[in-house]
C-alpha cells in the first residue's frame, strides 16, 4: 500500500525539483495571476457593481487560468529526451505516476494561490481575515477537484498538436461544477454569511473531488498507454 505512494512522491519530488531549478512555469503563473488581477482591478467600474459581488468570480477565474499553466507543464516535462517512454516501460505503476503528477501539480497550484490570494486582497480590498480558514478550505477543496481532472487531461493531450490549446478546450467544461461551487461558497463567506448556509455547495465540492480523483486514477492507465 505504501510502496505506490512512495513512488508517487519520487515522481512528485522530481517534478518539483525541476520546477525549482527552472522556475519557468511558476514565475509565469505568478506573473499571470498578478496581471489578471491588475486588469480586473482597473477594468471595472466600482460604482456600477459592488466589489464584493464581483470579487469571488474574479478570484476563481484567475486561479483557474493560472492553474492551466501548471497543468500544461506537467507532462511537457516528460517529453524531454522521451522520459515518459522510460517511465512507461519501467515497473512504475500508472497509478503512482498519476498520483506523483497530481501531488506536484497541487503543490504548484497551491503556491500560485498562496501568492494570488494576498494580491487579491490588496487589489480588491476584500476583508478575508475573519473567514480566512474556511476560505482556504474551499480553495483546497475546489483545487483538488480541478487539478485531478486537469492532470488526466494534460496526459491525454500531451502527444497531440497544439496541446496547450487543447487542454483548456477539453478541461473547462469539466471545471464548471467546482467553479460554481467555489464561487458560491466564496461569495457567501466574503458576504459574512454563516458556513451552515453553504454546506450543500461544500458537499458538492467534496463529492466532485472523490468522484473525479477516483475516475481520473482509473482512466489514467488507458490514457497514457494509448
Amino acid at each position, binding site marked *: 500500500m505504501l510502496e505506490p505512494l512512495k513512488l508517487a512522491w519520487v515522481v512528485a519530488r522530481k517534478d518539483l525539483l525541476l520546477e525549482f531549478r527552472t522556475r519557468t512555469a511558476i514565475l509565469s503563473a505568478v506573473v499571470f495571476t498578478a496581471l489578471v488581477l491588475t486588469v480586473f482591478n482597473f477594468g471595472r467600474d466600482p460604482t456600477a457593481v459592488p466589489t464584493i459581488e464581483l470579487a469571488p468570480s474574479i478570484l476563481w477565474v484567475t486561479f483557474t487560468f493560472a492553474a492551466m499553466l501548471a497543468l500544461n507543464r506537467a507532462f511537457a516535462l516528460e517529453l*524531454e*529526451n*522521451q522520459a515518459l517512454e522510460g517511465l512507461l516501460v*519501467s*515497473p512504475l505503476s500508472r497509478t503512482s505516476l498519476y498520483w506523483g503528477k497530481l501531488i506536484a501539480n497541487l503543490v504548484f497550484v497551491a503556491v500560485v494561490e498562496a501568492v494570488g490570494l494576498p494580491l487579491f486582497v490588496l487589489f480588491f480590498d476584500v476583508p478575508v481575515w475573519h473567514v480566512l480558514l474556511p476560505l482556504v478550505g474551499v480553495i483546497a477543496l475546489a483545487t483538488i477537484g480541478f487539478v485531478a481532472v486537469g492532470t488526466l487531461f494534460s496526459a491525454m493531450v500531451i502527444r497531440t498538436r497544439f496541446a496547450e490549446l487543447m487542454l483548456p478546450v477539453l478541461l473547462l467544461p469539466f471545471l464548471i461544477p467546482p467553479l460554481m461551487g467555489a464561487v458560491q461558497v466564496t461569495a457567501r463567506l466574503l458576504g459574512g454569511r454563516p458556513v451552515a448556509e453553504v454546506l450543500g455547495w461544500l458537499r458538492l465540492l467534496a463529492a466532485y473531488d472523490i468522484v473525479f480523483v477516483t475516475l481520473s486514477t482509473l482512466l489514467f492507465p488507458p490514457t497514457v498507454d494509448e
Partner: protein
Amino acid sequence: MLSAEGLSHAFGSVRALDGISFQLEAGHTLAVFGPNGAGKTTLLKVLAGLLRPQQGRAAVRGGPRAIGWIGHQSFLYGHLTVSENLRFWASIYRVDAATQQRRAADLIARLGLGEWAQRPVAALSRGLMQRATIARALMHEPTVLLLDEPFTGLDLAAAAELRRLLGELVGKGRVVVIATHNVDEGVELATEIAFQHRGRFVQFSPRAGRSGPQVADAYRKAVAGA
C-alpha cells in the same frame, strides 16, 4: 530468459517486423545487424514493452523490472544533474538509497563521468550524454539489456569500457541484445548473430568463433540475397 514468438509489426505499408522468433538463455548476447530501416529499433521496442506488436508475443523473465534499455533517447532530465538522474531512475526501479549511492559512484567512475556527475545533463556533450544513459540503464542491475546503437557518440575509451562492462554482465548470466548497423561494433561480444532485413531475420545463427570481417562478409551476402 528472453523469448520472441512470431513478432510482426507494420507502420502503414512498411513491415518493420515480419515473423521474428528467437530465444535467448542466461549469459547469451545477440547482436542484430541490419541496414537503416531494417526494423532493429522496432524489435527492441517490442522486446522492451514500449510497443505492442500487431502479432506475436515477447516475454522477458522478471518483467519490466528486469529490463535495461538504451535507445536513441536518453530518458534523462536536462535540468537534473547526472547524479540526480541516476538516483531518480534507480528509485523508480525500487533500488534502496544505500545501493543507489554505491552503484551510482561505481558507474560514474567506470564511465568517466566523475567530473560531470554534479552538472546538469543539459550541459553534457553527445558522448557524455550517452555515457550517462548507459549508467542510467545499469543502475537497477537489469538481467536483460536491450541496446540500440549503444556505441553512438562514444569515444574509444568509453566504447572499450562499455564492452568491458557488457562482458562482465554477460559473465554474470545477463542477457544482452545489441542492435546496430555497424558490424564492427558488438561482434566480439556476441554469442548469437542475426541479420535483419525488411523486418525479417534473414539469418540467425551462433557466432561460432567468426571474426568481425567474416561476419561482415556473411552480412553483405545475406542482405544482398534477401
